[in-house]
């Protein structure tokens, strides 16, 4: 008892001490931030030095620990993001440009604002648990691109451009500097300059070196000043994924990197419809053993809801079921436009080939006699799923940007709403619109306009999570569905993206130009249906536009 009382007393005393430290910290902070901003200013232009930047990074790093330990969670978070930015700058080969300088100053300002709002909220010990969480979520590692390039202007330009799209870069001047352990983590691609002064073919030689240092399957992108077939053959033999001739078109490089860094294909999803649980189980187990996801439905009347939610690649369906037959079910499924393309494979004990063929006439794609042995089931189902996905890609994805088309994104949103509803989870929807896109088209032509549309798609793909669903609503309007995310977090993320996008230089015939975007965010459960969410995001977007563009607003927030 005595011990417990003592403990409580000492905890109370520590809380008091911490209050004092918090007040103290808050009082000194403005001067401290001011000093850091001045330090940053002194690094601008010719004043740039890696040592100076490193010292600044250390100060910011220190602020995170102090602010966080004193419970200034929001400020610590902002400082963490600034730190991340500084680390990227330190890794870059060249001093940051003016936009980046301005951006860093904005971060410092934000830290000041955050500290005030943190100071106003009462100290919440649970914020420490959250910190551990944001440590990981904010630090989703970015895609790392390694660049080996001795011609500096090209490397600098590339670093700058890729940086805006959220790639992390590590630069090497010579291939020989890249040895085991010198690359910070597994890169998504290695870009190599093959230009050699005497025009030698060095593709295979450098490819071997890269593989020795980084392993076998790292994608290689070659850049060269030689366009002859000999050089290209050399590159292909070296196993390169892409080959660019100087002067390089940066949008092409981006497109390649975007392709190389797209997420790994998800496992196939198979919906099993069978009223016999044992058979269903047997098939599910065989498929799952091969890494395929399955959902089993024993009542055919549940099929439609699972189709929407589980989004299967293939439906494996028993022919004879009580309530309705598999054939009837197939006809119902085929009446829904969204599921016309999902392959249906019938299962039955039916061995009469004629009856089997008749079943195919009703919208089935194949007929297996059950139980199907695993070594037959897995490859047969996988092949169907693969083909189904390829076909669907053409049907569902926008050809220009590779994002989901309008109808498809609405379906995805509906599925996400249902999930959020059932799990009492969170969900945010963002609508983005490029500011003055019509003028871009009028002034620079549609080809350049298309490049701008693609740039935004690349940026979204690089900066958002794999679980976020991205769509192009049409024209220059984009939609992002962010599961497990509240409006505030979505707002911050989209604001980052807004900033990144504004910093991108788009190339046109008469020099380069920049464009901004506006964005509105709606959140569940403030808006309860897909329709309401879109309307809420749209309303916020409208206010963002009316309020001067180049901003992100949350539905329900004041302008």
């Amino acid at each position, binding site marked *: 008892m005595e011990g417990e009382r003592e403990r409580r007393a*000492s905890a109370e005393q*520590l809380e008091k001490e*911490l209050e004092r430290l918090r007040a103290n910290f808050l009082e000194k902070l403005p001067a401290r931030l001011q000093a850091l901003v001045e330090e940053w200013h002194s690094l601008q232009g010719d004043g740039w030095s890696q040592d100076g930047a490193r010292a600044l990074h*250390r100060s910011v790093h*220190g602020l*995170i620990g102090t602010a966080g*330990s004193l419970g200034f969670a929001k400020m610590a978070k902002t400082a963490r993001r600034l730190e991340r930015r500084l680390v990227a700058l330190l890794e870059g080969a060249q001093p940051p440009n003016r936009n980046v300088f301005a951006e860093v100053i904005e971060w410092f300002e934000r830290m000041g604002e955050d500290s005030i709002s943190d100071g106003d909220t009462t100290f919440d010990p649970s914020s420490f648990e959250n910190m551990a969480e944001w440590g990981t979520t904010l630090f989703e590692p970015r895609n790392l691109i390694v660049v080996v390039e001795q011609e500096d202007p090209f490397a600098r330009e590339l670093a700058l451009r890729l940086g805006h799209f959220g790639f992390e870069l590590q630069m090497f001047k010579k291939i020989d500097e890249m040895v085991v352990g010198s690359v910070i983590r597994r890169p998504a691609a290695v870009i190599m300059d093959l230009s050699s002064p005497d025009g030698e073919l060095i593709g295979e030689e450098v490819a071997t070196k890269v593989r020795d240092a980084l392993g076998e399957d790292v994608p290689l992108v070659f850049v060269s000043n030689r366009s002859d077939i000999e050089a290209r053959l050399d590159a292909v033999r070296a196993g390169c994924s892409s080959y660019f001739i100087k002067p390089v078109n940066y949008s092409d490089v981006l497109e390649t990197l975007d392709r190389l860094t797209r997420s790994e294909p998800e496992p196939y999803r198979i919906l099993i419809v069978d009223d016999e649980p044992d058979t269903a189980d047997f098939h599910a187990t065989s498929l799952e053993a091969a890494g395929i996801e399955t959902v089993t439905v024993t009542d055919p009347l549940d099929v439609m809801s699972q189709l929407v939610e589980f989004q299967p690649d293939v439906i494996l369906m028993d022919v004879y079921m009580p309530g309705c037959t598999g054939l009837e079910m197939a006809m119902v499924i085929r009446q829904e436009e969204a599921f016309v393309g999902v392959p249906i494979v019938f299962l039955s004990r039916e061995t009469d080939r004629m009856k089997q063929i008749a079943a195919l006439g009703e919208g089935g794609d194949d007929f297996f006699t059950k139980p199907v042995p695993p070594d037959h089931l897995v490859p047969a189902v996988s092949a169907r799923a693969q083909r189904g996905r390829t076909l669907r890609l053409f049907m569902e994805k926008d050809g220009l940007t590779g994002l989901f088309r309008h109808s498809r994104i609405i379906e995805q949103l509906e599925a996400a709403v249902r999930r959020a509803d059932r799990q009492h989870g969170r969900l945010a929807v963002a609508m983005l619109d490029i500011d003055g896109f019509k003028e871009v088209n009028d002034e620079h032509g549609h080809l350049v306009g298309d490049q701008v549309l693609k740039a935004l798609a690349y940026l979204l793909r690089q900066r958002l999570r794999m679980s976020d669903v991205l769509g192009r609503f049409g024209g220059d309007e984009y939609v992002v569905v962010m599961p497990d995310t509240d409006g505030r977090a979505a707002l911050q993320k989209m604001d980052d993206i807004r900033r990144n996008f504004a910093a991108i230089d788009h190339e046109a015939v008469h020099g380069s130009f920049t464009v901004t975007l506006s964005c509105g965010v709606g959140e569940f459960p403030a808006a309860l249906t897909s329709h309401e969410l879109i309307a809420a995001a749209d309303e916020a977007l409208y206010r963002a536009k009316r309020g001067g563009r180049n901003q992100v607003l949350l539905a329900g927030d004041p302008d």
Partner: protein
Amino acid sequence: MGSITLQRILLADDEPDILEIARIALETVGGFEVSVCTSGETLLDRLSEFEPDLVIVDVLMPDMTGPEVFEEIRRRPEFDELPVVYLTGVIQEEELNGLHETGVADVILKPFDPMTLADRINGIWKGRNGR
């Protein structure tokens, strides 16, 4: 050294604020005797005189890093069993693993919760002595 209960802690971090937070937390709740310094060099200088039971050292310091300090401590025969705990702001998993692999007693992440810091240090201490 070698005491059963943890009493004396020597702590180094180049950030004075964090030093203050950690010191107060360890003294008030843990009841430890804490000595602080703002660099690895000072910590090494003070080892023989203060005779700590445990050392907490920041990883990222300008002149001498935490791992360098740790290495130096291990080089001295009289301190080759002294438990060393890193304090660090890194949160990349690989980096963290790397720190653990240096053989320190444990790694504490910044920001930390001052209310539970003493308990955590006590836990690390007991875990070590229990071996």
